[in-house]
């Protein structure tokens, strides 16, 4: 056995996220690691690659016990991880990145020619046209991913861990990647492939391990396991139980928000949609299909080159998020830490920041703020460990609740939620789904951008699907299923925005 793990456990504070995980990797196999967001996949592979330490449990390479204190130690044993968020030095060139930390030298000086040749060889093997001298910053995301893989190859990886490698790749790039994986497999490399795209896993996996809520629920050869079975194992319950019932829409549901002919340079080519009162409008599509760009352009955060936004049937000009706030449109960003919360600020100030004016007369009224904060804790069930002072100290789920509390201070009629459950435990997910249900029950409207298919299917009245900057279609009722969404998301079905505008 090339790599095996026995009874790995990991806790963050009081929160245990991995429970007694066993995993075996053989040379020359592609082992798929399946699970929903928050199931513990990333934590597990981070332990294997030396980025995190297990709280308890053992790990063996070639039947020798190992306990890595850093990713460097793991790399020395040939265990290399390709990150979900790419970890490249942006301002360095491709070849400098490939050899970063293990530069070839001739005497005291760098052997640039040898490094260039070996980079070129590695990149050629990946069938990419990336120039080894190009700056990483100037490459597309998929090319950057190829550079990461080239980096791993030149380091003679024996175990290659790929964390959602296709999340940012186009279909043709995925094909190249899979061909490469096959070649690596033939060379005897063990590949641990993380994904929740069952279709891909069906194509390339030899064996599969399913995690759910930090527990190992299934492991074995891929042959003989169906997609449906794996999907049920991943989710662990029927979709019906996961999601609250849909809010009954009134027959003549008024349109509260409408976007017509939106064009965002470099991101959205053509998109129009309507949002009715009390409705959840889902937005599906792969990462980079232009969903966030479209919504941010509607809100006035991004510049659009064409398009109209109507609020309650009246054209409105939104130049900045402030204008959207004035129109009672709230936006929950997908980037909680980077755009949503001031991490080193106390929780109370975070809640009131968006609508601070309401807590001033004219100096800030700390009592009003505290009151609003206590109400938020109650309403959103924010769980505070003792001595939590700043938002950074909260767990992902509680941060998301705090962000919800923050945007709800403007008393919105339209709530736009971007990836509401990314990196959140299952329990909190339920709460957020229930909260979305409460919003629509109260006659508010919700736009839900999500990369989780089951979430879109379980929560949305209609699902708008985008593909490469074009809104390819809006699905309704029976049409809302995984296959249809995939077909619209990959551009097989649906053409332009023309038909759906009148739908």
């Amino acid at each position, binding site marked *: 056995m090339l790599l095996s793990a026995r009874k790995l456990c990991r*806790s963050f*504070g009081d929160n245990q996220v991995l429970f007694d995980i066993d995993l075996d990797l053989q040379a020359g196999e592609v082992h798929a690691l399946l699970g929903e967001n928050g199931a513990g996949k990333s934590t597990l592979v981070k332990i294997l690659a030396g980025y995190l*330490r*297990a*709280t*308890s*449990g*053992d790990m063996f390479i070639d039947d020798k016990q190992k*306990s890595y204190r850093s990713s460097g130690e793991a790399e020395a044993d040939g265990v290399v991880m390709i990150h979900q968020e790419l970890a490249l030095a942006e301002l360095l060139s491709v070849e400098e990145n490939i050899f970063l930390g293990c530069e070839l030298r001739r005497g005291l000086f760098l052997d640039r020619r040898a490094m260039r040749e070996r980079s070129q060889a590695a990149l050629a093997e990946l069938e990419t046209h990336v120039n080894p001298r190009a700056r990483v910053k100037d490459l597309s995301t998929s090319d950057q991913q190829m550079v990461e893989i080239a980096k791993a190859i030149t380091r003679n990886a024996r175990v290659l861990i790929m964390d959602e490698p296709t999340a940012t790749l186009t279909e043709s790039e995925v094909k190249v990647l899979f061909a490469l994986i096959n070649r690596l497999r033939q060379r005897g490399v063990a590949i641990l492939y993380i994904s929740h795209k069952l279709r891909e896993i069906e194509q390339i996996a030899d064996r599969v391990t399913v995690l759910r809520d930090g527990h190992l629920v299934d492991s074995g050869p891929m042959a003989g396991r169906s997609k449906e079975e794996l999907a049920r194992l991943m989710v662990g319950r029927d979709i019906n139980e996961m999601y609250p019932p849909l809010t009954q829409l009134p027959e003549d549901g008024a349109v509260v928000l409408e976007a017509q002919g939106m064009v965002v340079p470099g991101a959205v080519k053509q998109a129009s949609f309507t949002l009715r009162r009390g409705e959840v409008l889902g937005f599906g599509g792969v990462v980079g299909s232009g969903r966030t760009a479209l919504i941010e352009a509607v809100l006035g*955060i991004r510049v659009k080159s064409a398009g109209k936004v109507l609020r309650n049937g009246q054209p409105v000009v939104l130049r*900045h*998020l*402030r204008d*959207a*706030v004035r129109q009672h449109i709230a*936006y929950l*960003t997908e980037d909680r830490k*980077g*755009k*949503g*919360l*001031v*991490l*080193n*600020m106390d929780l109370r*100030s975070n809640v009131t*920041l*968006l609508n*601070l*004016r309401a807590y*001033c007369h*004219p*100096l*800030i009224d700390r009592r009003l703020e505290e009151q609003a904060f206590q109400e938020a804790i109650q309403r959103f069930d924010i769980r505070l460990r*003792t*001595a939590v*002072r*700043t938002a*950074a*100290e909260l767990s992902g789920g509680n941060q998301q609740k705090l962000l919800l509390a*923050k945007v709800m201070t403007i008393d919105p009629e339209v709530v736009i939620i971007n990836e509401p459950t990314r990196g959140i435990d299952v329990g909190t997910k339920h709460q957020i789904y229930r909260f979305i249900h409460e919003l629509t029950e109260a006659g508010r409207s919700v736009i839900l951008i999500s990369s989780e298919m089951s979430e879109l299917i379980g929560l949305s009245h209609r699902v708008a699907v985008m593909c490469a900057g074009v809104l390819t279609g809006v699905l309704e009722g029976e049409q809302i299923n995984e296959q249809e969404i995939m077909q619209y998301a990959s551009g097989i079905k649906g053409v332009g925005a023309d038909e759906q505008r009148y739908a």
Partner: protein
Amino acid sequence: MSSVMPNDKVAENKKSKSSGVDVDLKTWGPFIALAALALLGMLINPAFLGLDNLSNMLTRSAFIGIIAIGATFVITAGGLDLSVGAMAAFIAGVMIILMNSLVEQFGTGITTVLLGVGASLLLGLCAGFINGIVTTKGKIEAFIVTLGTMGIYRSLVTYLADGGTLSLDWGVRDIYRPVYYGSLLGIPIPVLVFLLVAVVGYILLNHTRFGRYCFAIGSNEKVAEYSAIHVDRIKTMTYMLQGVCVALATIIYVPRLGSASGATGVLWELEAIAAVIIGGTMLKGGHGRIWGTVVGAIMLTMIGNILNLTDAISNYLNGTVQGIIIIVAVYLQRASWRKTGP
């Protein structure tokens, strides 16, 4: 490996325990340091605590202190202003030229002084606005912009003084003199202004939206943008506030010597930044303290004062002692941040 868990627990307990102590140390650290320094001064020379010496010291710290309060806002909001020293010299120069030329029309009365004071405030506001607008709209780092304006103002004052010194009309000087040398209820006027600016600054930073937005912008500009905050406007306002503070400091400074030259206000920007940092404000923004800044400014002056009162260390080593104190202060702050920070 199974022993890791209890260790983690212990480490966590320790962390939460020490964070409680750190909070106090961070808030009160500058005050404790000031008290220690005062004690040292008293031990070295009992004259240190004399009323004359104390009021003299506070008066001298008022210039840097007032400027540093403005700098607290700029730095808290994630900016930096290197131009304040040169700006002070430039404002002083223009003010003197203006008042001298107004003597013909308005005589050496209070009107002339008031017009000079008004012009100074206006000039400070404009200079700050330029710094702010170029940084925000031009999207250039504050360091570079204010390095540029620093050079511009410095050379302008040299040009205005024709390489020499600009002197205030003697008549005006007599009228203007009390602004530096006078006192009210036994407290020197500069100290009163310093105190007033500090109180206003404290309220502005801790009890208004403007202040809260400064913290948010300094912590994370993107989050501020997504919180519907006028980021560019708030940042520009911090530079304008800084300009007004520089103007106020200059208004107090001019009657002291009654002159301005290319050497006026040299290195004030660094002293102001040092006062802000000693006071516990983070140079990278997001965290600011007005009273800390006040203490920082007083400490810087106090070091010089103590060195004056003793023969143990040469007065020429003033900069050395100041430098050591700045580095130690920041080291202590960082060490505590590292333990509690994210």
